[in-house]
């Protein structure tokens, strides 16, 4: 019998927070149990191999009624790139008008993922 490694994860894909049990087999395959949707399986696989996160933060705005505009990564990026992404966004300033969904930074921290505005600024 091949040695198995069992790990319990809490899925972060949605607010349900399924408790997922992942069993890693010696041949490298993973057994995922406890998830209530497909995203949970995907999450568990990623979390044990290459964890990713969506980053939400703000970027400085010049000349608008509010000094910052909220932004996010268009999709999840490698977890170890989160701080680098934040740092890159600290160094920029944007000017209105900004459309909701507009690209603020392309390919942030060389992740291949764009930063987009999550609110319109007049």
């Amino acid at each position, binding site marked *: 019998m091949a040695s198995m490694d069992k790990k319990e994860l*809490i899925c972060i894909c949605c*607010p349900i927070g399924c408790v997922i049990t992942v069993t890693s087999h010696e041949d490298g395959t993973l057994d995922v149990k406890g998830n209530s949707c497909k995203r949970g399986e995907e999450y568990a696989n990623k979390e044990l191999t290459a964890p990713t996160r*969506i980053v939400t933060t703000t970027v400085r705005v010049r000349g608008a009624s509010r000094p*910052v505009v*909220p932004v996010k990564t268009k999709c999840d990026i490698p977890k170890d790139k989160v701080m680098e992404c934040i740092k890159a966004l600290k160094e920029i300033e944007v000017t209105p008008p900004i459309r909701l969904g507009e690209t603020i930074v392309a390919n942030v921290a060389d992740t291949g993922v764009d930063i987009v505005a999550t*609110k319109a600024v007049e």
Partner: protein
Amino acid sequence: MDKRVDILIVGGGPAGLAAAVAAKKSGADRILILERDEELGGILNQCIHNGFGLHTFKEELTGPEYASRYIWQVEELGIPYLLQTIVIDISASEAVKLVTAINKENGIFTIEAKAVVLAMGCRERSRGALNIPGYRPAGIYSAGTAQRYVNMEGRMPGKEVVVLGSGDIGLIMARRMTLEGAKVKMVAELMPYSGGLKRNIVQCLEDYGIPLKLSHTVIDIDGRERVKGVTVAEADENRKPIPGTEEYISCDTLLLSCGLIPENELSVGLGVSLNPVTAGPVVNESLETSVEGVFACGNVLHVHDLVDYVSEEACSAGEHAAAYARGGRPAEEHKVTLKCAGGVRYTVPSLICVERIDKEQVVRFRVGSVYKDVFLTVYYNNTVVIKQKKRVLLPGEMEQIKLKKVEMEKFPDLKTITVAIEREG
């Protein structure tokens, strides 16, 4: 400005917006939203993190994006609203409600409404309400206030942070402050479990190595001008600090995330009965309060953890308000009282008029502590009609159950519906 409307909605946050859209779509014509902030969207504007809208839009949105979806609908449907307008009084005389408000442009004015939807949201429990002794130094904020400073006003409240309370806003802010360069030293939670969503403990605390100390609380705040540190101690099962467990933690900022309280001053002024458990109005199946024609939804009714459920609830309140304003609702004949048992703290609604249910009735509730491998049981009088196995029930997560009208009609002498948590006996 129209001084006479069919439906007046107090508050332009997620609940008010969804109620307005639903009321308009179900045929109400003259609707007016009054909002005290300078933009619509309410608390969503400062909730820049993702995780909103999975139920409603089947995609994961940030707070401002979620708000935009409803603001667009309000604009598209041409529903009027007034910003920077504060409602100061609501009164009812016969079938008419008088809503008095103030803004810069119009001064004090009164609007006559057939129906009113209360959608004022909630407030954070303050330091005063927590009875933490000590001076009043700068550096103590409710987590939501800090969230507004950071996410909307672009200001950082401090550099070294302790968070008291593990509600979702506290967890979210622990991560947010970390991303903005602060050192978050600890999240202390008085209860033996967190009040926040599990996913937030993972992605906001564990991801950043922030310790969560359960059964711990802040017993002293050091500093006269500015916070210099806090003393944290372990709490026993009666939530009292255990002598000898004190630990001093230096910090310049203390964030409080210790619960939310529905904001019902206006409701009380109007004479609406409140439920002491939720601190929100007692409502019936139509989400109508004890004052006829006055409806409530969202966090003013009971504190939610998911905005999707706020929208759903508010949609129902909006439709019922429209039906009331239109007139001709079925007469109330078969009234049923909802009761809770075995760990269920409250239900919304707490009264059902069977004739006024469309096809099914959503009943939302919370439990009082952590339950594992239990049954959620619903009794019609003394008969079990629903028995669902639940792996885990948490106080921090609102539950809901749907009751079918056809099932209720099978019990002509139905007087009470009991929602209970039971162990297999």
